C-alpha cells in the first residue's frame, strides 16, 4: 500500500471557488477561470501515490502550485476538494486533534528559508517537535542531539540560528524534522536558498541519509537538475496540474508533451543518462570460431575500422583493427590472438555520460560497455553527441 495517496486534490483560492471547481471539471484553463470567476486555481485535481521509502520530487516553476500542493498534504492549506490518504487515512477529513496527531507523528516539514526560531538555541530548535508533544526534557534533548549528530552539527547545540551559515541552518531544519522520527519528510524547496556548491553537498548528504534511513521524502523544487539528481520519481507541475509523473529517465527521454519537452531541453543530460542509454548492439567476432579473414569481411560489411573480439561466452577479449586484419591475411596468419589488441577502453552500464566523455576522447575505437567481463554494447562518438543534443535513438529500456 502506498504511504501517501493523493486523489483528485484541488485548491481554489477566492470566494467563487464552487463555480471555479465546476469550470475546472469542464476543462477550462487556469487563466480562463480567473477571468470568469476571479478565483485562482492553486492546484488542479492532482493525483499520485508515493511508496514507502521513495524520494518523490514535485517540480515546477514558480506559480505552478507546487508549494501549495505540499501544504495541502499536511493541511497547512485547507484542500478545496479531494483526498490525501496518509497510511490509509484521509487527512482532508479528519478533525483538528487527529490532524495534529498526524502532523506530530507522521509528517515533518523542512522549509525553504529554514524557518528556525531565532530565539531558541540549535538544540531547542531541534527539540521543538518533541517539546510540543509534551515529551520530557531529558528524552527530547537526547533525541534532538542524536538527530543533530546525524547531520553533523553535534557540537553546535548551544549556538543560535543567526550564528550559523545557511547550509548549517538548513541542516538544523533537517535535524528538527528528523527528531520526530516521522514517516514522511516534506521538503519545500529545502535547498533552494543555498548557493550551488552547498546545495550539491546537501543533496549528497540527503541521499546518504536516505540510504540508511529509508524515509519517504516528498521534495519540492524548481530546479530540474536537483529533481533529476535526487528523485526516484518526479511529478512535473504546470499551472496547478501535474503534467507528467515518471522516473528521471522517463521524463527526459519520453516527455509527455511539449511543455515537458521544453522544460527538459536545457538539462545537462550528461548527468542523467548512462552508458546503457546510448550503447548499441556490438559487432563482434568470436575468436574461438573466426579468423582474421572473417573479421575483415565483417568490418567491410558494416563499414567499421575495428571490431571487438569475444570468446564463445561473450567475454570481451580485445579488439582488432582492419589494418592489422588485412596484414594478417596477406601474411597468412590464421589466429586472431596474434593481432589482438587488449588496451580496450571500457565502461560499465551505469557509468554516467559525464564520465564517458574523457574515455571516448582518448580512444581510437568505440568504447566497450562491459559488465562482469561480458560485452553488452559499444558506444560510438556520434551517439554521445546525439544524446547530448537531445535527439537520436536513446534506448530507455536497454
Amino acid at each position: 500500500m502506498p504511504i501517501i495517496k493523493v486523489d483528485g486534490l484541488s485548491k481554489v483560492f477566492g470566494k467563487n471557488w464552487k463555480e471555479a471547481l465546476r469550470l475546472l471539471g469542464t476543462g477550462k484553463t487556469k487563466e480562463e477561470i480567473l477571468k470568469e470567476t476571479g478565483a485562482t486555481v492553486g492546484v488542479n485535481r492532482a493525483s499520485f501515490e508515493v511508496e514507502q521509502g521513495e524520494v518523490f520530487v514535485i517540480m515546477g516553476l514558480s506559480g505552478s502550485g507546487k508549494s501549495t500542493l505540499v501544504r495541502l498534504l499536511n493541511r497547512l492549506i485547507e484542500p478545496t476538494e479531494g483526498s490525501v490518504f496518509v497510511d490509509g487515512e484521509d487527512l482532508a477529513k479528519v478533525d483538528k486533534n487527529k490532524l495534529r496527531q498526524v502532523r506530530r507523528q507522521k509528517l515533518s516539514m523542512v522549509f525553504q528559508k529554514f524557518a528556525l526560531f531565532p530565539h531558541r538555541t540549535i538544540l531547542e530548535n531541534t527539540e521543538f517537535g518533541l517539546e510540543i508533544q509534551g515529551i520530557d526534557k531529558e528524552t527530547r534533548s537526547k533525541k534532538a542531539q542524536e538527530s543533530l549528530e546525524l547531520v553533523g552539527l553535534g557540537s553546535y547545540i548551544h549556538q543560535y540560528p543567526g550564528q550559523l551559515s545557511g547550509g548549517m541552518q538548513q541542516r538544523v531544519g533537517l535535524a528538527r524534522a528528523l527528531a520526530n522520527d516521522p514517516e514522511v519528510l516534506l521538503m519545500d524547496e529545502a535547498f533552494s536558498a543555498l548557493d550551488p556548491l552547498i546545495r550539491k553537498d546537501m543533496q549528497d548528504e540527503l541521499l546518504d541519509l536516505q540510504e540508511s534511513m529509508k524515509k519517504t521524502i516528498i521534495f519540492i523544487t524548481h530546479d530540474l537538475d536537483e529533481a533529476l539528481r535526487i528523485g526516484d520519481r518526479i511529478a512535473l507541475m504546470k499551472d496547478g496540474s501535474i503534467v507528467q509523473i515518471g522516473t528521471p529517465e522517463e521524463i527526459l527521454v519520453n516527455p509527455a508533451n511539449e511543455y515537458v519537452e521544453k522544460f527538459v531541453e536545457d538539462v545537462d543530460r550528461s548527468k542523467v543518462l548512462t552508458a546503457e542509454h546510448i550503447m548499441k548492439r556490438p559487432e563482434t567476432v568470436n575468436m574461438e570460431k573466426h579468423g582474421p579473414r572473417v573479421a575483415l569481411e565483417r568490418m567491410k560489411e558494416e563499414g567499421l575500422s575495428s571490431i571487438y573480439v569475444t570468446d564463445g561466452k561473450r567475454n570481451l577479449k580485445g579488439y582488432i583493427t582492419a589494418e592489422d586484419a588485412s596484414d594478417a591475411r596477406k601474411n597468412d596468419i590464421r589466429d586472431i590472438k596474434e593481432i589482438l589488441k587488449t588496451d580496450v577502453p571500457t565502461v560499465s552500464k551505469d557509468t554516467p555520460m559525464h564520465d564517458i566523455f574523457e574515455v571516448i576522447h582518448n580512444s581510437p575505437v568505440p568504447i566497450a560497455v562491459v559488465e562482469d567481463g561480458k560485452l553488452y554494447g559499444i558506444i560510438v562518438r556520434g551517439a554521445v553527441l546525439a544524446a547530448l543534443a537531445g535527439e537520436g535513438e536513446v534506448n530507455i529500456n536497454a
Partner: protein
Amino acid sequence: MLDFAPKIPIAEFISDLTDTITDMFAFLFDPIKNQFGDFMEWGADLLASIPAVIVILVVAVLAFFISGKRFGLSIFSIIGLWLVYNQGMWEDLMFTFTLVLASSLLSVIIGVPIGILMSKSKTAETILTPILDFMQTMPAFVYLIPAVAFFSIGMVPGIFASLIFATPPTVRFTNLGIRQVSRELVEASEAFGSTGSQKLFKVELPMAKKTIMAGINQTVMLSLSMVVIASMIGAPGLGRQVLSALQRAQVGTGFVAGIGIVILAIIIDRFTQNLNK
C-alpha cells in the same frame, strides 16, 4: 438649507448614558473607588515612607545592571532624583510614580490580551481599530469628565482616564508584532503539530516581544502624561504642582515641577527601553 433637522441631542444622550452607567454600575464602581483607592494610597505612602537615599541607591544599582553594566543611566538617576528631592518634591514624585506604575500595569494587563485577540481575528481587528483611533485622538481632558462621574476625584479616576488614553499603543503593537511574525515560522510551528496556545506562547509572543515592548514603552509614556493631566481631577503628584503654579502664574515653581516630570520620564523611558534589549 442645512437646517432641515433640529440639533441632534448627542451631548444630552452621552450625559444620560453616563448617568445611567454610573447608577447601574455603582455596585462595581464604589468598591473599586474605595478599596482600590485605599490600596493605591497605601502603596504611595509606603513608597514615600522609604528614605529617599535608599530609593535613589536602588534605582542607581538597577540602572547599572539593566543598561548592560554602564554608568550613564545610574549617574543620571542619582543626580536627577537628588535634584527632585532637593526641590522638596520627593513625595509628589512617589505619588506620580505610583500612579504611572499602576495605570501602566493595568494597561498592559488589559492591552496585551486584546492585542492578541485582534491579531487572531480579522473581525476583532475591524471593530477595534476605529475604537482605538477614537480613544487616542479624543482630547485627553474629555476622559476626565466621566472618570469623575464614575469614581469621583482622587487617584482612581486618574488611573481610569489614563487607562483609556494609554492602552491603545500596547494593543496596536501587540497586534502588529504578532502579525509580523514570518509566515514560515508560523507554518513551522503548525506543521509540527502545535496547538493554538503552544503556537502563541512558544513562537508568536517571543517573536513579537520587541514590538510589544516598544508599545508598552509608549503606553508608559502616555500614562505619565495623562497622570499629570489627571491632577485636574485631584490626582496627587507632580502634576498638582504644575497645576497650582499655572493657576497662580508662578513660572519658577511650574518649571521646577516640570523638570521633575521630565526626569521621571527619562528614567522610566530608559528603563523600559533597556528591558527590550
